[in-house]
């Protein structure tokens, strides 16, 4: 794994304190924070303030692609080797709707996962980590040069961090 840039890592027990620290750091002009949380907490994510994830576009594109490919596949295969079954028209839409529906769901779900992986990797930032962040602590990593650590550490402590340490 890539080494993370130097910075300050803080741990919070309280969700409101963490949200306050995030808002304050943002107002002080610190960017590229990495915020860790054991659960998707609304208050913290609100403070971070990301726009809605683009994963939903993947779902839409996958679903539409699945539906269209279901239509194209069934129709093309019906005419490619024409066999009349049960006296029905060669290309019978009603029974093919089932295939179109299933492929809508299948490709929609696969595209959603692909989008999740793609955006997860794309927005990944190397940052210091503590194993307690998947347990009960909220973490904030501020990438900042060592000479400014004292200022950031103080801001984090004032906001209510229970632990603060510099990570080179």
């Amino acid at each position, binding site marked *: 794994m890539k080494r993370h840039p130097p910075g300050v890592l803080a741990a919070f027990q*309280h*969700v*409101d*304190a963490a949200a306050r620290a995030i808002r304050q750091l943002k107002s002080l002009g610190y960017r590229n*924070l*990495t*915020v*860790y*949380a*054991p*659960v*998707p907490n609304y208050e*913290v994510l609100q403070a971070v303030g*990301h726009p*809605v*994830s683009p*994963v*939903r576009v993947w*779902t839409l594109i996958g*679903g539409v692609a699945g539906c269209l490919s279901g239509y194209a*596949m*069934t129709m093309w*295969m*019906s005419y*490619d*080797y024409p*066999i009349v*079954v049960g006296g*029905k028209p060669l290309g*019978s839409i009603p*029974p093919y709707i*089932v*295939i179109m*529906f*299933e*492929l809508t*769901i*299948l490709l*929609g*779900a*696969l595209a*959603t*996962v692909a*989008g*999740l992986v793609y*955006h*997860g990797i794309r*927005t*990944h*930032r190397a*940052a210091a*980590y503590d*194993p*307690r*962040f*998947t*347990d*009960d602590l*909220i973490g904030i990593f501020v990438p900042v040069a060592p000479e400014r650590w004292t200022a950031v550490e103080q801001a984090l402590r004032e906001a*209510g961090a229970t632990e603060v340490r510099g990570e080179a």
Partner: protein
Amino acid sequence: MATLAAPRPAPAPAPPTYREITRDVAATLGKPGRAYYVLLGFVVSVLAVGVFALLHQIRYGLGVAGYRPPVQWGVYITTFVFWVGIAHSGTLVSAILYLFRSAWRTAVYRTAEVMTVFAVLTAGLFPLIHVGRIWYAYWLIPYPNQRQLWVNFKSPLLWDVFAVTTYLTVSSIFLIVGLIPDIASVRDVASGWRKKLYRITALGWRGTDQQWRHYTRAYLYLAALATPLVLSVHSVVSWDFAMSIVPGWHTTIFAPYFVAGAIYSGCALVITLLVPLRKAFKLERYIHEDHFENLAKLLLLTGMLVGYAYAAEYFIAWYSGNDYERSSFYFRAFGDYWWATWTMIICNGFLPLFLWFKKIRRSIPAMFVLSLFINLGMWFERFVIIVVSLSHEYEPYAMGHYTPSWVDWSILAGSFGWFFMWFLLFAKNFPMVSIAEVKEIIPMPRREAAHP
């Protein structure tokens, strides 16, 4: 409605802290005891019996199973529908209740979802076993071939191929995506080879703001996709029957009837699995009477729907004035297979009526016993629909009788061995209670009181 609700007698005990949740769930993944190995050995030997029977059938042909014209669909298709049905409640609990934001699902949904994936995995074997020549199973897939022949998309059996494969794929995705944050949680407290396993399977999860941002969206859309899927899959399975002109099969009620029955049997198996699981894993604090009561209410609802469907079937058979339909239903209740029909009616139509009593809904032993009867009844429901209808079609000279052979029964038993083998292996290696989601319903500690 608040004014109508009875006041809760005892105040709920303090919710566990986040740290306790992680520790309690991670503790279920420790070194298994002797009982676990004994149980695993038992289910694997049951599976071995099924595998032996299958090899015997492959060696000597489908004739060793009890199939005689006109009954060519027997225990295998019954068991296929049974396991597909079992799968449904998992997605109901994990996806549909997720969209409804129902908090009680968090403690039980992982078990239900694991059950779903392994039940579909079991179900998927049966069409292959049933076709006899397993090595030609790939003919079901539309692939380019020398003769340029394509599959028949007008056949419900092919819809089934698409529905069941999609269901297996999507429910596996849903399970795996849901597992990622929990695996990361146990990774951070585990040691030894398990830590290595979880480090790989957590896929680099750390719970960062960006990860949660994409994850929560993806999970929401997966739930939204799984919800119509679960309703479609058993509808498609029911059309395997309803699209034909066999008396007893050719009815429009089949799709909703099958979906209700599927959720009914699935909830019953969730209860069957949860009772020993919570005992063995000491999860009484997380899975308690309230969860069983909620599952019982789902059982009651779907059980009443199933009971209604039974009544409607008989009523329509009579009301249609169609002699074949009437004769088929008379044969169901009073013919060769009367015992199967009455097992089904008593287990599925009458036993769930006990669930009107709160005392029974909240009694874990009673729910366990009831869930076993419901599963028995639901297997027989599919047996009755499939075998009894086929053995009594239009032409009296073409009516027949089907007796399952030892091969049928062994493969049926083997399917339970197969299912429980996967379930046991999973339960001891991955968290069976969703750590992140159980935490999510407990508010994080605050420094200052939240604004009202």
